């Protein structure tokens, strides 16, 4: 019990200290661009109403989930294909390294030129940003599967989809999860960037609108919402990861204790 409390105190301690510091340091601020934290907190409930959530937060989230989902499907799918095939790997690796090295935001203007400024483009922007870490980590994970397990599959005639599902994907899952976590934060960034250019709704759009309308406390509150969203999604990710990689952490712990 005291242990749990201690952990909670440790997790929340620094954010609390920073907020309190900000609160008092900004208390007397007369600067237009750096309003007191108190003002930001005061405008928060009026800014982030249920109607605003429906009109701006929900569309952003839908685009994020579709884009992230597609990045995962495409990244893992291609990753398994490339990782399992040595020839394909040596053929594609230089190209993949090149494509990965391009910062995804610079692709946004190009994508807008090609695909317009509708929802599909905004989703595409998210996919283009998030697919790389998933793809490259999946390739690594699939390449590194254990030889003995591979032989076991062969001699027990575990082929095709059953093999991919119960062997390849599971064996590569620790690495895939690493890629998926990187992709999640990149996708959130790409979601905002996609909404900065030619959007009519969304979180990024809202923040920019506040800035253009000189509603500075409201703009700050939007930044808060984005930060909170990131934290919540990361928490959700950790919960999923725990389920998926339960075996991995268990096996690692057993190894360490010299089992």
């Amino acid at each position, binding site marked *: 019990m005291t242990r749990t409390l201690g952990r909670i105190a440790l997790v929340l301690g620094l954010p609390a200290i920073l907020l309190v510091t900000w609160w008092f340091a900004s208390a007397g601020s007369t600067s237009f661009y750096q309003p007191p934290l108190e003002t930001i907190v005061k405008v928060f409930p009026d800014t982030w109403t249920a109607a605003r959530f429906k009109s701006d937060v929900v569309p952003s989230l839908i685009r994020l989930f579709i884009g992230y989902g597609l990045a995962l499907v495409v990244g893992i799918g291609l990753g398994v294909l490339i990782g399992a095939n040595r020839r394909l790997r040596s053929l594609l690796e230089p190209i993949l390294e090149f494509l990965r090295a391009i910062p995804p935001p610079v692709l946004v203007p190009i994508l807008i030129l090609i695909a317009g400024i509708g929802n599909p483009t905004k989703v595409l922007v998210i996919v283009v940003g998030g697919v790389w870490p998933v793809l490259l980590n999946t390739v690594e994970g699939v390449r590194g599967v254990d030889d*003995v397990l591979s*032989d*076991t599959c062969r*001699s*027990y*005639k575990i082929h095709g989809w*059953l093999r991919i599902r*119960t062997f390849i994907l599971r064996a590569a899952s620790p690495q895939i999860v690493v890629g998926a976590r990187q992709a999640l934060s990149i996708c959130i960034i790409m979601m905002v960037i996609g909404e900065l250019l030619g959007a009519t709704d969304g979180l990024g759009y809202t923040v920019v609108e506040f800035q253009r309308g000189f509603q500075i406390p409201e703009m700050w509150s939007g930044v808060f919402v984005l930060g909170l969203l990131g934290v919540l999604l990361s928490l959700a990710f950790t919960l999923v990861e725990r389920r998926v990689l339960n*075996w991995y952490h268990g096996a690692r712990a057993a190894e360490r204790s010299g089992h």
Partner: protein
Amino acid sequence: MLEISSLRKTYGGQGREVEAIGNITLTVADGQFACVVGPSGCGKTTLLRCLGGLLTPTSGEVRVNGQVVTGPPDGLAIVFQEYGRSLFPWLRVGENIELPLKSKGLPRAERQQIVTDSLKAVGLADAGKAYPWQLSGGMQQRVAIARAIAFQPKVMLMDEPFAAVDAQTRADLEDLVRTVWKRFGMTMLFVTHDIDEAVYLGQRVVMLSSSPTHVMENLDIDLPDDRDQLKTRSDARFVELRTHVYARIQEAKGANGQSPVPTAP
């Protein structure tokens, strides 16, 4: 039935060919328990991988149950040395045993029955829900044996399965393998570097030379069928047989140019 005729395996590469197996001809009759021993590095594992269809021989032929081996043959199961790497760590023990049955296309109820029976046969009736890494090394190898049994093979290959477990566990597992073999009557080929183990387990011991490997001697083990860790191992005949095998293996090592180890008195 296992038939190996003029099997040869070389590993090629940049101008230097390594001949792992020179020429092996060997037949193991249906239901026979044969142990293969040889000096270290003599290509025991290479032989076993050729039998299991995991390696293609350079020349010669392997037949399992009359069929020429071109890939992993039907009705053959392998128990690997590295138990920690041959069980799927993300699957529970029961699921590990069930997986090959899924690929065989057996219905669920039948699979469950077989899993329960095989776990019982290796003395792990309660372990089905555990993960492999929650078990000791010896228990993990029992699970691997249970998985092989569940596959209902006609031929079972074991590749130094007990090399990595402690002596106590090893004795228990040896007796388990004898029990399993007697109960299910499969053809058994057991590869080991442990001479005592080979003599204790087999109806027959096949001695391999050092590389390039050929069969040096086929020795029938005329010990009573009921083996017992204490009685059999102190039996005068057992001591005679193991001394003979030991001497031959030393001879093989000497022939390879390595300094011969002084023979046991």
